[in-house]
Structures are given as structure tokens and as C-alpha cells.
């Protein structure tokens, strides 16, 4: 079961995240549950694979906003970085970022169980 301590240990800034949820833990956890299933993770991966940088940027940018608001720092950080690169439409190898994002997302998902 997800707990604040577990999130903290994972590296999340739960004080910020909770305060945006008006201190309501259940609400916070519910939103975290939703972000793990966010379709933008898949969209980002697919778009990067097919080199559709516009679409990849949109997906990354959306994720960045939500992860930032929930203060899920370990997932937010690589998403933030890839977003800035994609904003410039940089023609580079994004696979390392995709990999890190995917790993961190899985780690977060594991905390839910």
C-alpha cells in the first residue's frame, strides 16, 4: 500500500504534492494512481521510436506538468529533461531518457502494491 513515507524514500517532495491536494492524502494517492496509467508515457515512447518529435514533445510536456504538480520528483526529473530537449526538437538519441522514465515509473508503480 502506498504511503507518504514510501514516497519520501523514493525521493518525492510529498510536502509540495500534498499541499496542492489540500493535505488530502487519499486524494493525493488517487491522483498518483492515475498518473501511473497516463497514456502519455506510451505516447512518448512510441513517438520517440517513430521520430515524431512534435508528438513526443506534446506527450512529454503534458507528463511534465502533471508529475510536477504531484511532486513525483524521480519521475518528473527525466521527463523534465527530455521535454526541454524535445522543445528544441533536438535530433539525438532519446532512448536513455525513455529507459530511465520507464524504470522510475515502474518503481513508483511498485510502491502502490
Amino acid at each position: 500500500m502506498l504511503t507518504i513515507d514510501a514516497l519520501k524514500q523514493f525521493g518525492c517532495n510529498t510536502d509540495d504534492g500534498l499541499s496542492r491536494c489540500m493535505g488530502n492524502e487519499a486524494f493525493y494517492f488517487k491522483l498518483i494512481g492515475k498518473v501511473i496509467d497516463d497514456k502519455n508515457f506510451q505516447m512518448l515512447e512510441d513517438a520517440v521510436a517513430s521520430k515524431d518529435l512534435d508528438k513526443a514533445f506534446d506527450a512529454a510536456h503534458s507528463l511534465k506538468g502533471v508529475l510536477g504538480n504531484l511532486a513525483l520528483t524521480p519521475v518528473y526529473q527525466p521527463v523534465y529533461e527530455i521535454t526541454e530537449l524535445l522543445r528544441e526538437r533536438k535530433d539525438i538519441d532519446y532512448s536513455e531518457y525513455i529507459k530511465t522514465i520507464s524504470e522510475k515509473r515502474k518503481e513508483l508503480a511498485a510502491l502502490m502494491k
Partner: protein
Amino acid sequence: MNRSTDLYVDGKRHILVADDEMINRELLENILCDEYDVLMAEDGEMAYDIIRENRKTLSLILLDLMMPKLNGLDLLSRIKEDPDLKGIPVIVLTSDQASEVESLMRGAADFIPKPYPQPDIIRARISRSIELAEDRQIISATERDELTGLYSSEYFYRYGEQFDKYHPNSDMDALCLDVNHFHIVNERFGMAKGDEILRKIASCLMTIFSASDCVICRKTADTFLVYCSHRDDYTSIMDKISEACGNMPTSIKLRIGVYASCDKKLDIRARFDRAKIAADLIKNNYSVSVSTFDEKLMENELFAEQLVDEFPKALAEGQFQVFFQPKFNITGDKPVLSSAEALVRWFHPTLGMISPGKFIPLFEEDGLIAQLDEYIWKSTAATISDWKKRIGISVPVSVNLSRAEMYDPKLVETFEKITSEAGITSKDIYLEITESAYVRDSDQIVDRVKELRSHGFFIEMDDFGSGYSSLNMISELPIDALKLDMMFIRNAFDKINDTRMISIVIDIADYLGVPVIAEGVETEEQYLALKKLGCTIIQGYYFSKPVPAGEFEKFLNDKKF
């Protein structure tokens, strides 16, 4: 209820959250739902539809910039270009600074960064934006006069003051423009026509007084105020305005009061009071359209105000004194004291004796005349009673009634009370009613006069010849004496030495079977001429000026012996 927020104590404003990310929407909804009703849109098109549908009730839009279908910046432009929607404040939700500037340029009220700041910061920014937008809406709704599009007076004064701040050295004029007898235009041609004329004047003023150095407003119905840099020639400006209104069904006559090169140390309202004083000075003068304020005017105005202000104290302290001017019957060999007229004098502690010509018209305008007249009537009755007791005789004394008093349904009752309290009768007091009172609303006045006569009061028609009564009406008037307007005496003897008009009036009086009283008789020549013409009674300096009660006693004593 003094703050606009109080309006919403029991209700909630509506806010739209437009963001394609459900989590963001839910976060904001959770933060705002206690204070607001939150509507949600997940793409730009949907947001636009909701905004249109709720445009009358929506207080604010929280707008994410990156949304499918219609992105935030384009939606923002659409809102700000639509006159129906542009008043709704938009706060942009964004994570990049470049978009912040762009959003503000396109009309966003504010922005909230992502990740979101603390909820209380979000709420404060929202509430501030709503407040500003609502204030702005109220300002734009009240800033302009709906009919003409000119400023309303409160804003006019503010903008005038602001103009002074930016142009401290410019020479400014305060103007007050009025339409002569505008209510008649409205009555004759209807409100719609009146409104059309006012709009025409307004648009004319806007053309003549360019926006860069002038502020213009419509103050009340037909009064316009203009604050502009100094101009020398207002006559040609007035001609232009009158010309523009020329194709109206009636000739509109405008007048303008000018307080030129005004003293900026005066409150701005006071500057326009001065312009108004000047404008009112030519209210009934159709040949002059421009009137300029000068200090002398102000002195008169202040003097008038002082008199009105001090009236209650003067009345309480007995500063008003009733004087008596004798009237003599000249039909016999020797003039015989027949009656007197009560005339008021004001002995002011610092201003000395003030002429009734100065305060009576003021009091008539202010309605104070009723109190003063009642005072005169009472003290006249008391004096008559006193003479009777001490000297043993009296003569009837006439008192003046103003037009307004003739409408008082208790007038007869008042006089009955005054006479009975003084222990005298209705035969002791005569009533002088000016001819002009009969002319307007004559039926009502005539009925009142009949009522007074039926209670035994003697009615003298005052100022006869000045009120343009028709001959037809005169024959039906319930009166006991005609008092010649003083102008007849002056004209007959001063200028042309033509007494024919007096003869005519005397013939009319004969026809009515009432005596003619001539007042303002100053010389023996006049006295003899009037006697020859058949005038019955004479009043004037030739016999005596108005004198205090004590001095008048000598006439009574002469009569007695």
C-alpha cells in the same frame, strides 16, 4: 452591503478550468471548489463552447496553453477579440516563461506557473483578477452616459482633475451648457425627440472640443459640462452648435456659462458651479447665448446664500419688522386715511437694512416665503389689535400673499385663526394677491379667492396691468379693488406723459364696480393727475414712506380727531 464581494456571500462565482490533463483539472477543482463553482473543459473547442454558453455568468477562465483541437493561445485570442467575451478575465497556466509574455500580450489577466504554487497563492491570484475585472466592468458601465456616450459627471470631474495634473500650466475654461426650457421640447415633441436633440448636441460638442484638450460630460437632463483649454470666442462655437441642431422641428436655443481661465486652486466642482451661475444668469434672455462669470456674480450668489442661511435665525430674533404705508382716499376735498399696506423690512445686525427686493424673490424661490408671510400676517394682526385697544381706532391693513400660498388648502383656516387669536375680524385685514397669480391655474386660484371672500376678506388685485389678464377673465374675477401696477405711474409721468392707459384701467375698475388704488405716487403733480382721472385711493411717498407701527399711529390719531 458596501463591497462587491458581499454580493456573493450566499452564492458562488463560476470558474472554468480548461486543461487537457485530468489530474491538473482535478487538482484545481479540489483547490477551488469551496469558493467557486468549477466548470471543466478538456480541450480548446470544448472550452470555447462552455465559455460562450456561460458568458454571462463566468467570472474567470483558467487556461492551459497546450491543449488539443484548439490551443490555449488561439483560444485566448478568440476570447479577447469577441466583444461578448473579452470582459472575462483569463489566467494562463504555463510552465514556460516565453508563453507568459505572449499570453499577457494577448490579453491574459495573469498567469499561474506549473508546477502550481501553493493553493492560497492560486486562490489569491484568482480572486484579485476577478475583483479587477469586475471593478473594470462597473467602471465602464458607469463611466459613460448611456444616452450620449459622454462621460458621466463623477468620472468627468475625476478626469478633469487628472488633466490638471498632467497639464498644470494650461489655461483652462469651465463651461456649462444648457438648453433653454428643455422640458418644453420634451413635452411638445416627446422624449424620443428630446433624446435625439441631446445626442445631437453631444456629438456636436465632441466634434468642436477635440478629445486631446477637453473633457465633456452630460451632467443632468440637458446640462452639459466641458473642461477645455482657454478659448476666446464662444459666440461662434454656440452658433455652430445651434446650426447643427437647426433642422429640428423647433428652434433649440442653447446658452452657455463660461468661467474662463479658471482658478485651479478651487475644487473642480466649484469651478463648474461658477459656470452654472453664469449660465443661469441668461436663462430667460433669448437674445444672449454666452454669459461669462465674474467675481461680482459670485458675490451676489454668496450674498443670496447668506440671506437664505440666516433666515431662520433672523426670524427667531425678530430681525424682520413690519412697516406700514398709509393709503389715502382722494375722492373728497381732502385726502382721508383709508387703509395701509404692511411691508416687511429686514434689519440685519451686520448688513443693516436689507431691501425686500433682495430677499423676497430669494425666499419665494426657496419656499421660505411661507414662514415669513405668516410672521408678517401675525404681527400685522397683533399691531391692528394693539391700535384698537390703545388708540381706539384702526384702519384695514393689507398683507401680501404669494402665488404658492394660494394653493394652500388651509389658507382660510390660517387667516381665521390669526384674526381670532388677535381679537380682530376679517374686515380688518385686506389681502393683496398679484395679478400674475390669477393667470396661471386661474381656476384653482379663483376658487381660493372666492373662498376667502366668502369668509369676509377683502381682496385687492395687486400689480394690475402686469399680468396680461384677458379682458374676458377680468369680468369674472372675484375682487374688491384693483391696484395699479407701479409701471403705469412711472410710464405715465416719467417718459411720455401719457395717462391714457391709467384711464383705461380706471374704466375697467368702474365697470367692475371696484375702486382703483395707485401706488408709487411720489409727486403732487401725479397726485393731482390721478385725482382728476378718477383714481380712488393713493399710496406712495407723496403722503408717506412705509413707517414703523409706532410712527404710523400719528395717522390714526389724525383720523381720530
